[in-house]
């Protein structure tokens, strides 16, 4: 919007690359990523912070990009699903989601994976119960929850509720 007098310039480091663009202040980070930077891997679900489909990492922490304005993120680093792995070199969490069949329609999957990767760093994946609690910000209307927990447990090398080490699906 080059002619908009209210436009503000935003600088973001997105997936390691610095980018500058002008936005209407009303633009959410989610809409900026999708519509301005054409990074459509980040999905728009509810737009109200309830579903988690738009989860990205902002300065290394998972957030819902629908509830922050692009201008509020000025100067920050953003990682989206496009910055996590490539089709030829998947991130281990992406591999685990494929191996564990952790999705059906796939719409929530980028958000689930961004959340799951952050969860590993947060260290709250010591049990299935803990994984479920700390994935509660990501809804899956297909109901792939059991397999999503499997995928995260596999990557975390966590133990199940009995305390035994749980083998990955491929080992089982």
């Amino acid at each position, binding site marked *: 919007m080059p002619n908009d007098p209210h436009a503000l310039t935003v600088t973001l480091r997105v997936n390691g690359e610095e980018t500058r663009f002008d936005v209407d202040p009303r633009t959410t980070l989610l809409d900026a990523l999708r519509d301005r930077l054409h990074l459509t891997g980040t999905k728009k679900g509810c737009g*109200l912070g309830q579903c988690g489909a738009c989860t990205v990492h*902002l300065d290394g922490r998972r957030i819902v990009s629908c*509830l922050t304005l692009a201008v509020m993120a000025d100067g920050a680093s953003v990682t989206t699903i496009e910055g996590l792995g490539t089709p030829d070199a998947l991130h281990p969490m992406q591999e685990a989601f494929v191996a564990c069949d952790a999705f059906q329609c796939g719409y929530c999957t980028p958000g689930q994976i961004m959340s799951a990767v952050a969860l590993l760093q947060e260290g709250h994946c010591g049990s299935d119960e803990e994984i479920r609690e700390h994935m509660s910000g990501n809804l899956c209307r297909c109901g792939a929850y059991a397999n999503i927990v499997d995928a995260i447990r596999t990557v975390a090398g966590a133990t199940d509720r009995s305390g035994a080490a749980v083998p990955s699906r491929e080992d089982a």
Partner: protein
Amino acid sequence: MRAFTYERLDAATGASRRADHPGTTYIAGGTDLLQLMQEGIAHPRALLDVSRVGTTGVTAQLDGIRIGAATRLADVIEDPIVAERLPLVAEALAASASPQVRNMATIGGNLLQKTRCLYFRDVTTPCNKREPGSGCPAQAGQNRLNAVFGGSPHCIATHASDLAVALVALDAEVIVERAGGEKSIRLDDFYRLPGDTPYVETALEPGDLITAVFVPIQATNLPGRYLKVRDRASFEWALVSAAVALVVADGEVVAARVAAGGVGTKPWRLPAVEDRLVGRPMDVQTLQLAAEAAADGADPRPGNAFKVPLLVNAVARALAATADQEANR
């Protein structure tokens, strides 16, 4: 969403003068305000971003613990001072929202979040809080989520914050930056009952900026539990919640702090429960008799009458859990 201007502030000092204009609103985490703007409930003309004015971090002082207003919920939960000395606050925050929202939302903003009353959140219906004088359909309508304490014929919306319930139990204060200087307000006095002005929710004056929350020293280092009962196991507001902190010496309850959430038009302190605890032996009978006073004065409606026994049972369980914590110290 209507157009607005946006500016990021560098310091809390002077903010109140900048914000003292109709239509000007502070934004920090934005997790509630952006929902309200997306839904057409709030339409500010100017946003002042106070997320980077430097009011972050937890500080242990001689007289208490100060939590900066712009500190993110997740950072407060992980803070070692809070984990060790304010377990009730840590537990209430851990039960709040989702991990993503906890990484964004701030302490000051959490205290100012708007009610989840269905009618307030639906712009196609009347609501005295949103549109003064338009009416309160919750009185005789869908009131399952609404308040049983502190309501008026004009409003029975509950306060949604878990943190505020824990902080009211701990006699916390809100520190406010005001044009004339810094002001401290007890959180219990900070929140207003709806009366006939349900749109006046707090003691804040135009331009006021919350810079910190302060928990006085006598309310720190206490065993305490926050029990939250909700429609699903996680990422949901409370139907009923109970915040409890106890001081026990030689098997006797010396001091008790009990407050409830999900039941009041503001975080609801339960002095009748506290009175039945202090000076009594710390045993099962005392805790049960005390919990039974939790619903004293409740004014339920058909849709939310279930909250009365739920509150009594939640307080009983939170008291028992706190007694366990005390016994295992």
